[in-house]
């Protein structure tokens, strides 16, 4: 079932499309850089997991989704929300724990949602979102709404038992769900080799008859095409697929990670040779779809969006103390 894709011709794209991917990825990167800065300044407390390096995965997947398709992920979630079109202001203000945050300060970095944008979180427990993703798919199938859910999780989460319980049910009932393993090679400080008997994670669905594909997660077009294939498969009623996105995070697992489990050279090498944003940048320039001035203007525009989000996140007031008690359960009428 599981297979590595054979090398095929270069994925098709056009100017507008590629520029939009570039823009999306750059927004994620600049947003995350700013979040890292605010963390360093003590404006963000607690946990903060940055997505820098992995931008092509969520950007490519989002490009393959249709309106109404859902996304659910783990705790490294800021980028997924940006990709879903959630407001950068609301995301940043949740990081700073303000009333303008998407969860009004209740959730923090790992716990944000948007019904409007079909983003189902933001989950702080490793792997716990995977069964939920299948449940979203179940509801899609039952309701006959034609939507597909994308459940993102990491290489670390791929060793959770509940992931396999989910694989079985998802295939047994041919649910319209796509499992996306963002294999950034380290589950916090433990490499895939030190945690996994089978390191080719796209094979993990083999015994459930779930087709798996390994994808260069640093190449936004390859990601998009693989996601399109898997989403179509799911939408056509053929059940789930697994996409293993081979990617890399440049920063630590969280902000308090000494990163002694990998060498500086390894990080530098990946950055210089496989960076997903640089790759698209070169493509844009090579094809003559943008020049340096265009890209500079775009960069400036994005920096302004991010600065606006950061300003908002610092100006937004702290949540009112009464917020502590809201949304625990539906208020009792009467």
């Amino acid at each position, binding site marked *: 079932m599981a297979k590595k894709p054979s090398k095929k011709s270069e994925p098709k794209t056009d100017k507008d499309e590629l520029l939009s991917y570039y823009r999306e990825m750059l927004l994620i990167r600049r947003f995350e850089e700013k979040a890292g800065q605010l963390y360093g300044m003590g404006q963000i*407390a607690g946990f903060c997991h940055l997505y820098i390096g992995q931008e092509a995965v969520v950007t490519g997947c989002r490009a393959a989704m249709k309106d109404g398709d859902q996304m659910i992920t783990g705790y490294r979630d800021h980028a997924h929300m940006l990709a879903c079109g959630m407001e950068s202001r609301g995301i940043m203000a949740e990081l700073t*724990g303000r009333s303008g945050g998407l969860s009004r300060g209740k959730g*923090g970095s790992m716990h944000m949602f948007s019904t409007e944008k079909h983003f189902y979180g933001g989950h702080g427990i*490793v792997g716990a979102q995977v069964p939920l993703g299948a449940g979203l798919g179940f509801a899609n199938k039952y309701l006959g709404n034609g939507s597909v859910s994308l459940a993102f999780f990491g290489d670390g989460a791929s060793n959770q038992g509940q992931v396999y319980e989910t694989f079985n049910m998802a295939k047994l009932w041919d649910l319209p769900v796509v499992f996306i393993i963002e294999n950034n090679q380290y589950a*916090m400080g433990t490499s895939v080799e030190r945690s996994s008997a089978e390191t080719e994670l796209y094979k993990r669905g083999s015994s459930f008859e779930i087709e798996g594909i390994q994808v260069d997660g640093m190449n936004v077009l390859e990601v998009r095409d693989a996601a399109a294939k898997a989403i179509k498969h799911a939408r056509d009623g053929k059940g789930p697929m697994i996409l293993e996105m081979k990617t890399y995070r440049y920063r630590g697992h969280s902000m308090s990670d000494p990163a*002694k489990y990998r060498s500086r050279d390894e990080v530098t090498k990946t950055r210089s040779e496989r960076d997903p944003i640089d790759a698209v940048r070169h493509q844009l320039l090579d094809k003559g779809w943008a020049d340096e001035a265009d890209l500079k203007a775009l960069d400036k525009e994005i920096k302004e969006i991010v600065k606006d989000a950061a300003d908002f996140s610092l100006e937004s007031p702290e949540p009112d103390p009464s917020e*502590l008690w809201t949304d625990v359960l539906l208020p009792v009428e009467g």
Partner: protein
Amino acid sequence: MPEMNMIEAIRDAMDVKMSQDPDVLVFGEDVGYFGGVFRATAGLQEKHGLHRCFDTPISEGGIVGIAIGMAANGLRPVAEIQFADYIYPAYDQIASEAARLRYRSNGDFTAPLTIRTPVGGGIYGGTTHSQSPEALFTHIAGLKTVIPSNPYDAKGLLIAAIEDNDPVLFLEPKRLYNGPFDGDPHAPAKAWRGHKLGDVPAGHYRVEIGEARKLQKGVDVTVLAYGTMVWVAQKVAQDLGIDADIIDLRSLLPLDIEMIEKSVNKTGRCVILHEATRTSGFGAELAAQVQERCFYALEAPILRVTGWDTPYPHAQEWAYFPGPKRVGNALRTVMEA
């Protein structure tokens, strides 16, 4: 005696036991090579080898399940669950297997395993990195649940837990790892260095499971607390000039009810503190037992100061945390009754 913070004391306990007993193994997520997210196992892999201190996949149910099998077959595993908030996938194994093996096998099999896990808030972890789930475990017959509040007790209790022939859940209040925390997040952080209970003997010693510690003697009111809350209690009592009899439970199950009973019969007043949510919290059990035994000695209703019945919030961490103000109000209320 060497001075240690709570992390060092916990690490030292494992080191002592690993040195004494080749059947003691330490493992969990990022425990080996990385040395644990809170560094509790740093250096143990280098010293005792890859076969005795090792990393596991992120599989809490599997970690505990495998530990039970190891324990039933002659080893003394010490498994780490990185945050208590991650323990729920292992709950089935803890409740239905570890805690019940002895009973079900008519005493033939036991599960001498220790599960270490950090609990409590104070680091802006939000709902999934701040919880105090102790009451879910004290509800299970066949399992011991302990929670130290200082380095001295942490080391002695952990050694006793590892040597125990039944499963022990060892809860580590993460806010206390580096120093005693008295509930004011804006005050400069205190260190264990220089603190009486940061003096930790080298080598082997035990703090017996089931024995509470009288943190301070007093006659006005009995305060029952554990983990982080004992330091809040002490500071508040001091600030209010209340001569409180403060009991650090240390062990929730088995419970040192004799010390509690004696104290409440003496003071006639009782305030119970915990960080966990209120409803069905361990405080409810304590209140029930105190009134069963001390009803006629009580001069005031027993009060509980706890976390609110809400999920642990991110931004409003300190509105949730049962801090000095709420503890002070309760102490004053029982004193005025």
